């Protein structure tokens, strides 16, 4: 296991995680600069996007009005209906075969086809997709690595799948 920004390493990886602390537009620019956008698209390995990394899998983000990787059909929209933004803290992840309470820190959310959605979270009365899955691609809006035991279980399951 390692951290890399090298397209050759990405091409040879058995499993990929696209993490995300940051903003969409600079993140996409950094991926394109290094040719990582093409490497991620060309890989056949299981790829999990985390938080911003999940959002980048989709077509377009309203955060910085930027085109993303376009590996999944859907867009990223601002959470403009919530009482407080960012959606920050621990919330329920409903679906995907287990109850979980996970840690979120985001101001934007995915809006996508129902068929991609494996679990959802309600933010001030509106459900947003917080686990998506399609073929080798998956994405989680929360931070499993910061979600104590519930997050650890989820990561272990992905690694075993």
């Amino acid at each position, binding site marked *: 296991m390692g951290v890399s920004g090298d397209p050759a390493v990405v091409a040879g990886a058995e499993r990929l995680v696209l993490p995300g602390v*940051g903003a969409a537009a600079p993140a996409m620019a950094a991926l394109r600069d290094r040719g990582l956008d093409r490497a991620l698209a060309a890989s056949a390995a299981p790829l999990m996007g985390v938080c911003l990394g999940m959002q980048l899998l989709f077509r377009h983000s309203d955060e910085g009005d930027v085109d993303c990787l376009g590996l999944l059909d859907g867009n990223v929209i601002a959470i403009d209906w919530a009482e*407080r933004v*960012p959606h920050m803290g621990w919330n329920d992840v409903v679906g995907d075969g287990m109850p979980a309470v996970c840690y979120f820190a985001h101001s934007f959310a995915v809006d996508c086809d129902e068929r991609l959605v494996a679990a959802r979270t309600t933010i001030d009365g509106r459900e947003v997709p917080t686990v998506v899955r399609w073929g080798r691609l998956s994405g989680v809006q929360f931070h499993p690595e910061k*979600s104590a035991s519930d*997050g650890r279980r989820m990561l272990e399951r992905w690694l075993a799948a």
Partner: protein
Amino acid sequence: MLRKRVIPCLDVRGGRLVKGINFESLRDCGDPVDAATRYAADGADEIVWLNIAAGEESWTALLRAVERAAETVDVPLCVGGGVSGADDGRELLLAGADKISVNTAPLDRPALIAELADRFGSQCVVVAIDAARRNGGWEAHADGGRRPTGRDAVAWAREAAGLGAGELLVTSIDSDGTHGGYDLELLRAICEVVRVPVIASGGAGRPADITAALETGASAALAASIFHDGTYPIHQVKREVAACGLPIRI
């Protein structure tokens, strides 16, 4: 439902955990990574590290400690104290911090908040506001509460949120260290004028104080000594807050 958070705050100097009776007599209290790991296991929803040392050597030691924390602490870690520009913030985030907290630097140069938010996203930019009562309102203070700025703290909260702060950590200088409860009026005043989450800080003496702070509209409550002294373990505080009907992760 989004849970209210309970956050222990740890003072860190030169990569070591310290506790102070006052600023002159700081005691080495071990490894902040061990302490953070213990708090996470006891139910802390997030950990805050406040770097109270100046100087490059201390900064490097802090970064090394943040790297170790990222390996073992499985809840979010916010680190502040001494972040004067975007490059400092980048170093902390690369080391593994989830959020960075700024206090004095944006008071001197508010545009820093927008720079941090543009570069890293609002969700990891925490603006800490140290406020003291003055003339029926509150005045924002810089330099760890020692330098009055002449700025109205509530107006500063609104400005910081408008510039892109993702969260405000609001400390009452008057209540801090008293164990007499948070400044609830200050919290209400700020929660009313911003739409970002607010973390209450300063004055926790018992679990009921934390419940009261969270009932003002604050999204989280931060405390230090009641956890460090072992008076109230985090899980006990959270159970008492939950018993009052607030949403809490148990």
